[in-house]
């Protein structure tokens, strides 16, 4: 089992551009959450997808959007990139919402640099 896989591993974009990050969850997991980890900070929750719908969202602007596909994989899109969007973006998958033992499996992340 490859666990959670994210692509690409690194990305450099220019201010104002748009970016799409991808995530494949661990086998058997159907819920995908995205986190942003700025340098020197802990991961911050962006949003969570379950059954192809956004289930909950953190305090991020509408420039951040996502999608979940029928195979449970997910994309994170960021429009109109700002320098402050430079961060490590983490994807985490988990079993069905409400499973008694709560547990995330994290991917290695995508390092986004906005110049």
């Amino acid at each position, binding site marked *: 089992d490859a666990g*959670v896989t994210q692509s690409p591993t690194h990305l450099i974009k220019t201010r104002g551009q748009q970016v799409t990050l991808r995530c494949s969850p661990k086998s058997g997991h159907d*819920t995908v*959450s995205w*986190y942003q980890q700025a340098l*020197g*900070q*802990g*991961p*911050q*929750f962006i949003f*969570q997808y379950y059954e192809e719908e956004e*289930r*909950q969202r*953190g305090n991020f602007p509408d420039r951040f959007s996502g999608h979940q596909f029928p195979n449970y994989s997910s994309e994170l899109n960021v429009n109109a990139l700002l320098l402050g969007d430079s961060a490590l973006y*983490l994807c985490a998958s*988990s079993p069905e*919402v*409400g499973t008694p033992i*709560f*547990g*995330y499996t*994290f*991917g*290695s*992340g995508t390092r986004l640099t906005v110049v």
Partner: protein
Amino acid sequence: AQRVTQPEKLLSVFKGAPVELKCNYSYSGSPELFWYVQYSRQRLQLLLRHISRESIKGFTADLNKGETSFHLKKPFAQEEDSAMYYCALRSSDKLIFGTGTRLQVFP
């Protein structure tokens, strides 16, 4: 507000010394707390969760509701324990993380 605080950015100890990584939380209700670890060039991984009352790699953490703390402890640090440690609080199936503490264990 729901919040996790890790007051130390860096904790340096010598091999064999005791370790305590501090974590305080703010949460209304019954909290569910975790410790995650990130070794150099590796992904974030779960170290332990309070609900399981387990000991992983010699680490333990006890939830103290009176002090709203969930400190991570190990009696004798090893060099391989050097890593970033994050305390996290579960809130509606998402995690709220602290800013992390870097543990350096010197030989």
